[in-house]
């Protein structure tokens, strides 16, 4: 019997959401306890700041240039490598419960396996692998799929319809009549994508994901090795937690987050010092990410909107923490307490008011790139708790899962496993972390490549619709933790900038061509 793996992800969660990372609003005692007895990574970045590319990196251990999911809407190839497949071949039982999103959501033709599995209420779909043998889709023998609400072709939506056919309408309507992400405001302040949701807490997707996880684990024999990816859809927008929970955090009493610049003139000076797509989006003239509501203009965001959205996100974070607590209790009750490795992270961050912006896009700053990442090794592994300051990426997860299972680093994986401490980080080659962005949605072409190392983050904007290839961002994370002073054009830092760019281009894998087609907006 080996070590079992509980892989917990949230969606669009900030580093500072958690108490163990200095967050002072949401109470997250369960995650904080995992952090105290495990390894906390203080500089963990995704390899892309939207869902599908980032999740594909987690599964494949590859950068975006290699796995080819270069923006949302590009499906991960059905024969892409999967660490879940490797674990299953090694004897692990495998499940993915909650949000998958390796394939597009908007799929009326039912072309993609996730949507066929969910809409059919199936456990998985068998495919013939390269070895000629049948294997479950992406290596998961059990799927129980959900997304941000009660609609869509997923198990949660089917379950919710059976509970109450009217329940789905209690959630915020994610798309409008034009199939654009809905810009409608709600709550107390008219904040975008906020709704007071009448859904009972026990019917909310966070609870369902935990319930489904507990139920699947209960089907396993005591001596099974297992890999369970428990994937919460929250705190991704829309921000519509159950209304019954709104008393947890009163938005009226919240301080504004440090990243929000209250003075509009100062805020706009900071934006103007960044590549031009920042200010163009703020003014509502250049929306390059489908998930940012096209009809919403960021410069209309009020301080109270920011407070209310933050309150909603923190309520959702608390619900996630409590749901994890229920799962950990059930694991302990099975007698597995000492043999389970828990990894906790998210796919990307959320601007959540920083720079007067919400949602996400080609904005490679800590709001979107600095992620919570915790590895609580099984007690039986006797790994000392630590905090790691070295830069690491989600690209290291696949190798980490392999190492927990006693497998060698997969030959397709592009990173060594996560380190146990900073000393090991150096020996494993965790010197830098890379992040890519590409989008071409509706003719708006944006590309960015970023390297973070030695306390600096450097982004070059590729030639596109509004960039000529000369723009970029350079931040000193030690002296400018909020990334307000862009040193890209500062001649005193030009040599350092160029050295970082050389390091970026020499470290980034060559792009696999031809590019895979984008089959949906998300």
């Amino acid at each position, binding site marked *: 019997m080996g070590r079992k793996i509980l892989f917990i992800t949230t969606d669009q969660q900030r580093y500072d959401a958690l108490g163990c990372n200095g967050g002072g609003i949401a109470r997250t005692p369960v995650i904080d306890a995992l952090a105290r007895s495990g390894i906390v990574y203080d500089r963990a970045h995704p390899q892309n700041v939207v869902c599908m590319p980032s999740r594909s990196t987690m599964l494949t251990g590859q950068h975006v240039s290699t796995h080819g999911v270069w923006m949302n809407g590009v499906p991960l190839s059905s024969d892409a490598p999967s660490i879940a497949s490797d674990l299953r071949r090694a004897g692990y039982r495998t499940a993915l419960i909650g949000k998958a999103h390796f394939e597009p959501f908007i799929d*009326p033709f039912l*072309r993609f396996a996730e949507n066929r599995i969910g809409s059919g209420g199936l456990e998985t779909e068998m495919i013939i692998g390269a070895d000629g043998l049948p294997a479950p889709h992406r290596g998961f023998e059990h799927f129980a799929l959900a997304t941000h609400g009660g609609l869509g*072709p997923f198990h949660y939506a089917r379950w919710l319809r059976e509970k109450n056919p009217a329940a789905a309408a209690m959630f915020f309507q994610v798309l409008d009549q*034009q199939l654009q992400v809905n810009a409608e405001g709600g709550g107390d302040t008219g904040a975008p994508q906020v709704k007071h949701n009448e859904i009972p807490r026990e019917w909310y997707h966070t609870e369902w994901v935990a319930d489904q996880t507990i139920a699947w684990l209960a089907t396993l024999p005591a001596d099974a090795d297992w890999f369970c990816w428990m994937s919460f859809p929250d705190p991704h927008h829309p921000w519509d937690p159950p209304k019954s929970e709104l008393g947890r955090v009163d938005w009226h009493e919240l301080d504004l987050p440090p990243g929000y610049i209250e003075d509009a003139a100062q805020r706009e000076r900071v934006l103007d010092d960044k590549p031009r797509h920042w200010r163009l989006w703020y003014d509502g003239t250049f929306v390059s990410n489908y998930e940012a509501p096209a009809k919403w203009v960021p410069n209309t965001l009020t301080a109270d909107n920011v407070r209310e959205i933050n309150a909603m996100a923190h309520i959702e974070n608390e619900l996630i923490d409590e749901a994890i607590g229920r799962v950990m209790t059930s694991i302990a009750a099975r007698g597995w307490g000492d043999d389970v490795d828990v990894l906790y992270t998210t796919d990307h961050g959320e601007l959540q008011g920083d720079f007067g912006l919400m949602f996400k896009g080609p904005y490679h700053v800590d709001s979107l790139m600095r992620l919570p990442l915790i590895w609580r090794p099984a007690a039986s592994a006797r790994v000392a708790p630590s905090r790691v300051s070295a830069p690491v990426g989600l690209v290291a997860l696949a190798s980490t899962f392999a190492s927990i299972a006693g497998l060698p680093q997969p030959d397709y994986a592009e990173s060594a496993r996560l380190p146990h401490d900073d000393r090991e980080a150096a020996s494993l080659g965790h010197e830098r972390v890379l992040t890519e962005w590409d989008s071409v949605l509706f003719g708006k072409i944006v590309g960015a490549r970023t390297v973070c190392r030695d306390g600096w983050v450097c982004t070059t904007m590729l030639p596109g619709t509004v960039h000529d290839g000369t723009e970029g961002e350079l931040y000193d994370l030690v002296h400018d933790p909020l990334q307000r002073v862009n040193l890209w054009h500062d001649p005193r830092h030009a040599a350092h900038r160029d050295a970082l760019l050389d390091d970026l281009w020499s470290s980034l894998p060559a792009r696999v061509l031809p590019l895979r087609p984008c089959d949906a907006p998300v």
Partner: protein
Amino acid sequence: MHIDRDPDTVWKLVGDLARQHEWFPLASCRVEGKKRWITLRTGITFEEDIVTHDHSLRRFQYRIVGNPGITSHLGTCDVLDDGRGGSVVVYSTDMEPAALALVIGGAAGEGLANLKRILELA
């Protein structure tokens, strides 16, 4: 999509509008005069007006109608002679909401790949 079969052979399948589900990711097609109804695998049915069905040009054009969520649509499928005994099939979509055009474009890509496989294996 290039298909290593002559245009008349390709058009024989593409131009039979009731058989599109044999190569496009659809559940079924039904044609009555200048009308067609296609049913997706999700069970959604779209009503279409057949705008052009020209055997000499090897061109098919259609509009999705009667759907309040689709404010405009024109789909076009051309089978072109590549001049070397093969064919190039071009499937294009103009529509609002534009987000749905991307989805139809993805399905068309899969459909054209299927078409090539079916015809070149035949």
